[in-house]
């Protein structure tokens, strides 16, 4: 009932672990798959090791999370050892790669040439790490086209380009990715950055000062982004941002997503949130006489 596909990748269900939540180790991906995820994404990996920003790297308040992890990761050399023999895992694994230049993205990709990822995800949208994502202007239509083309030339794997919710003109960015050969869009990365100040010590709480906003508060923006992108491109969309309950996932599908990214909800509802969301989707679909995910995808546009 919940089967869906992203490009040529078949998923048992539409929940995908979003990049950066757990996902640092192969065992953590395994754990998430055992808890029902239809696919999983690794933490974003750069060419060299990165320690990331100083702590606090994550805070939450009510319905949002702010993070400035700073893309901490062991670098592609270690990561390619870590993420070996991925076919042992019972769901597709997407490798997330970051770089500071188009060439560097390609170098990271090549560092993973022996890893059997089912797809490569490329965030051009991290909002809190100098040299990367929106802080480096990677999210413009021009930069998106350039980076996507470079990676497209270097791999046959399905290519997912991950966008920032920060721009009004997301359709143009999505279109640029599609024209450059992307197979799918992931929308969205974290919003902002935002800032939380502790008034008792008159200091921002996050070690980096600012961080990307995720979780339920991001959902309406993510849904609107997916809605806009669906109208402008033909490639499938992974709707990411605040998906916490089965109803949220269905809303995302109706806006135009073919699958949903789930990140911050691991905090709100524990690591078995994937199974919970799937169960909730199934019972809603049964009650409302839906038998297939395809019937939901883009349903608001009908």
């Amino acid at each position, binding site marked *: 009932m919940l089967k869906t596909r992203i490009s040529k990748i078949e998923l048992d269900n539409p929940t995908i672990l979003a990049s950066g*939540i757990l996902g*640092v180790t192969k065992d953590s991906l395994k754990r998430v798959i055992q808890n029902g995820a239809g696919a999983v994404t690794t*933490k974003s990996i750069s060419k060299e090791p990165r320690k990331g920003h100083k702590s606090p*790297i994550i805070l939450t308040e009510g319905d949002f999370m702010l993070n400035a992890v700073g893309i901490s990761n062991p670098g592609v050399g270690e990561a390619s050892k870590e993420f070996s023999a991925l076919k042992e895992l019972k769901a597709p694994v997407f490798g997330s790669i970051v770089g500071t230049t188009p060439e560097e993205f390609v170098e990271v990709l090549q560092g993973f040439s022996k890893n059997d990822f089912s797809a490569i995800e490329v965030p051009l949208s991290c909002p809190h790490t100098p040299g990367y994502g929106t802080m480096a202007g990677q999210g413009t239509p021009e930069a998106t086209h350039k980076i996507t083309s470079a990676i497209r030339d270097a791999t046959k794997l399905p290519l997912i380009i991950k966008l920032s919710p920060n721009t009004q003109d997301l359709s143009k960015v999505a279109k640029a990715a599609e024209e450059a050969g992307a197979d799918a869009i992931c929308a969205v990365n974290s919003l902002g950055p935002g800032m939380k100040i502790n008034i008792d010590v008159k200091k921002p*709480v996050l070690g980096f000062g600012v961080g990307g906003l995720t979780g339920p508060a991001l959902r309406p923006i993510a849904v609107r982004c997916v809605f806009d992108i669906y109208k402008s491109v033909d490639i499938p969309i992974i709707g990411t941002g605040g998906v916490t309950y089965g109803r949220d996932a269905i809303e995302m599908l109706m806006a135009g997503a073919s699958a949903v990214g789930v990140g911050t909800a*691991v905090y709100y509802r524990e690591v078995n949130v994937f199974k919970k969301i799937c169960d909730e989707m199934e019972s809603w679909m049964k009650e409302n006489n839906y038998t297939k995910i395809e019937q939901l995808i883009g349903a608001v546009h009908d």
Partner: protein
Amino acid sequence: MTELPTIIKIKRIVDEAEDVKTFFFDYKIDFEPGQFFILWIPGLDEKPFAISHQNKEEIGMTIHKVGEFTKKLFLMKKGDKIGIRGPYGKGFSIKKSKSCVVGGGVGVAELSILINKLKDPVIINGARSKNNLVFLDRFKAHITTDDGSLGEKGFTTDVFSKLLETEKFDVVYTCGPEIMMKKIFEICEKHNIELQVSMERYMSCGFGVCGKCMCNDQIVCKDGPVFDSKKLRKMSEFGESARLRTGKKATLKEYYGK
């Protein structure tokens, strides 16, 4: 749900041993022994710690100076502000049976709230040397030092093995260097005794999101930091390796030398 530091003031500071002090704060909070808290020095960094003292309106944390963070903390004075969040993770499960508590280094401090809730536990308190031992007056314990400067010369594991020749325990609790805890685990396995260990990893967020504290498929800050024998049997990385801040897998030696 909210994870933000609450600002508290240092009320007093007590010297415990070489490079070990207890910081007291006026702060009322419920937690299970074995759960941990994260302290924030505003603008500097955060680190996880255990509570070692709890009176009605007051908590104390016994802290060993080991790095940048604790160095800065040791320069702080009465009245200075610090942030705290938690409790995090799962604590010890307290059994109404004959127990032994093994603490290495400042491990006894992390176990002290547990000790207060146990009925007549046998305690082993060990450290490198006399100057590194904590709570000699607080708990009646079998004392051991690596250099023999106080108590029996040797390791907590030696004392524990010897005790087992004459005593029977239903459950053992331990906190200290991982190499020591691994040895205690091996001894307990041989004697068929249930063990609960308090594990230390690079716990950054504290609530199971950032993924830096994985030990095999266990999220140490969330599934732990206390693990029992049943779980430990499946954790091949226990006593062997840990993740550095980058996520790189490292030997424990490399990890502690970080």
